[in-house]
């Protein structure tokens, strides 16, 4: 009898907790999804619905005009292609170079490698703003320690090209690369040493071991790093606005969207355009910019959520 009562109290407690949990999760999910839902609802609204007091979420008149407007102002397809090329090339190069460095730091110890890993930590800690100006000046007159002027007679200006991104990602020093090296190192440290030794016994060299044995095992870490690096490069406005001043990439286009929009709508004079309408088109622009990312996420998220648990991000 007492046992049964205890049991019911226990199950009652559990039921209460799962209710609280449900409420919390649904509420917080709503908080996260709210801006996206808001943007979708704004993007398909007609201009006339904007001032209608009846319309809150579901518009009375559907229209795709906002999309057309935003696409033409942002030069969307061109920008999309540019951004995609830039992000995917830096992602592939960064992932490759960081995997190499991570494996080197994790398993192939040489004299001074501990000290160099301290350097990796330092690159994570130092805010990118601190080294921005020297890098900028360096890229403006790129000499590679005086080699290029010797060959061509003058230094190269690498700004406004993709070279800064390519160079930094080949050398694993691009946006947040220190973090990726850290992830790879932690992951490779988690793979048992015996695997490597067995490969060596069977006659594989170090490079072969890395390519044939370690990399196929490191898929979770690779997925994580690839996704992070792709997304952060896509959204990055810090390096992009510094290195690329006139090229059309998503984040710069988005950043200048309000300005371009006001020129487009009011023929150059500010403050004439309807601010609400401008904001509406701007929201549509943001939606268009993150749409590829959301689609990408839908495909990889399952894999991503599962894989993060095995990345060994955890010491």
């Amino acid at each position, binding site marked *: 009898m007492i046992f049964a009562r205890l049991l019911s109290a226990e199950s009652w407690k559990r039921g209460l907790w799962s209710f609280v949990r449900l409420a919390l999760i649904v509420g*917080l999910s709503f908080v996260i999804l709210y801006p996206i839902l808001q943007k979708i609802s704004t993007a398909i609204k007609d201009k006339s619905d904007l001032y209608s007091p009846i319309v809150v979420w579901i518009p009375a008149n559907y229209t795709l005009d906002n999309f057309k407007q935003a696409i033409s102002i942002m030069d969307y397809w061109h920008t999309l292609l540019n951004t995609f090329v830039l992000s995917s090339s830096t992602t592939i190069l960064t992932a490759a170079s960081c995997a190499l460095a991570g494996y080197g730091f994790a398993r192939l110890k040489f004299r001074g490698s501990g000290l160099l890993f301290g350097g990796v930590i330092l690159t994570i800690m130092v805010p990118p703003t601190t080294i921005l100006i020297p890098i900028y000046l360096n890229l403006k*007159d790129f000499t590679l320690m005086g080699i290029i002027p010797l060959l061509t007679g003058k230094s190269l200006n690498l700004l406004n090209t993709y070279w800064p991104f390519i160079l930094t990602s080949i*050398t694993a020093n691009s946006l947040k690369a220190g973090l990726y090296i850290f992830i790879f190192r932690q992951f490779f440290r988690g793979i048992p040493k015996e695997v490597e030794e067995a490969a060596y016994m069977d006659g594989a060299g170090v490079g072969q071991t890395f390519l044939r044995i370690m990399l196929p095992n490191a898929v979770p870490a690779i997925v994580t790093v690839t996704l992070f690096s792709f997304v952060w490069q896509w959204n990055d406005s810090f390096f992009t606005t510094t290195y690329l001043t006139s090229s059309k990439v998503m984040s710069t286009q988005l950043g200048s969207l309000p300005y371009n929009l006001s020129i487009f709508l009011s023929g150059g004079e500010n403050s004439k355009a309807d601010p609400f309408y401008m904001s509406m088109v701007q929201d549509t622009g943001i939606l268009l910019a993150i749409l590829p990312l959301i689609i990408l996420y839908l495909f990889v998220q399952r894999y991503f959520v599962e894989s993060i648990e095995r990345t060994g991000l955890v010491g």
Partner: protein
Amino acid sequence: MKSILKLGMKQRTYAEQKSLWGFLFVLPWLLGFIFFFIIPFISSFRYSLSAIEASSEGMKIDFVGFSNYTEALTVNTSFNRILTESILNMVVNVPLIVIFSLFLAVLLNQKFFGRAIARSIFFLPVILASGVIMTLESSSLIQAVNDQNAGSGILSGLGSYELASMMMNAGVSETITDYLTGAVDRIYQVVSQSGVQILIFLAGIQSISPQLYEASKMEGATGYEAFWKITFPMVSPLILVNMIYTIIDSFARNDMTELIRETGFTTFNFGLSSAMAWLYFVAIMIILLVSSYLVSKRVFYQE
């Protein structure tokens, strides 16, 4: 090329081979580290100590001592304010984000209906809340108006007023009340910045061996006790990691960054800008060191 390498390799022991390859593997990073980090890092320090004039013939760098630093600290109108503001923000937000993400990670680790969906929603901010989108979002007019309209509704209706009066009546001190109600008001900001941290905690929780929980259950521990006696000590190293990550992550969306950039690229005062950047860097270093010292004393390591 390859055959030469192979020939040279024959005489080496396994350990020597490994260290050679290790150096080769790290080499690309090392080159980048030297050219895109150490040299700029040092020259940034040099710039901060000099007056720089950029002209058509190139740059003229004159050593001026610490005058850029004094200018940043005493003459510049906004530097001090922005520096204290951004540091204060950091100090306020970091514990909030860490605690919140630990809580959510524990929640998302439990078994319930729709867990996969919930997880993918909670990691969505990793993708969305970064860079330019965040900045534009805060300036969206429609959003602001709609939030106003929704003010009487769900979003902020439950908000801080009731909570504040409730807590004051319960005798909680005013600072804590302000802090917590502020957290409720900024819930979107907090949620959107804790995506990666949730991931890290979740991974950590999943690596705890289930035997520990089984044993504690046998001994009659409640879920609450199991959290404080098992989960919390086991993930405590990750609290340090997450704290550092949160501090670093805040560099990207920061008024300080904006100010440094503006001084550098719109007024072309490279010296002053570098000095500001160094002051900021030193401030952050101090915060990192102090907080890691405080936290690492309490961290539990298995070894």
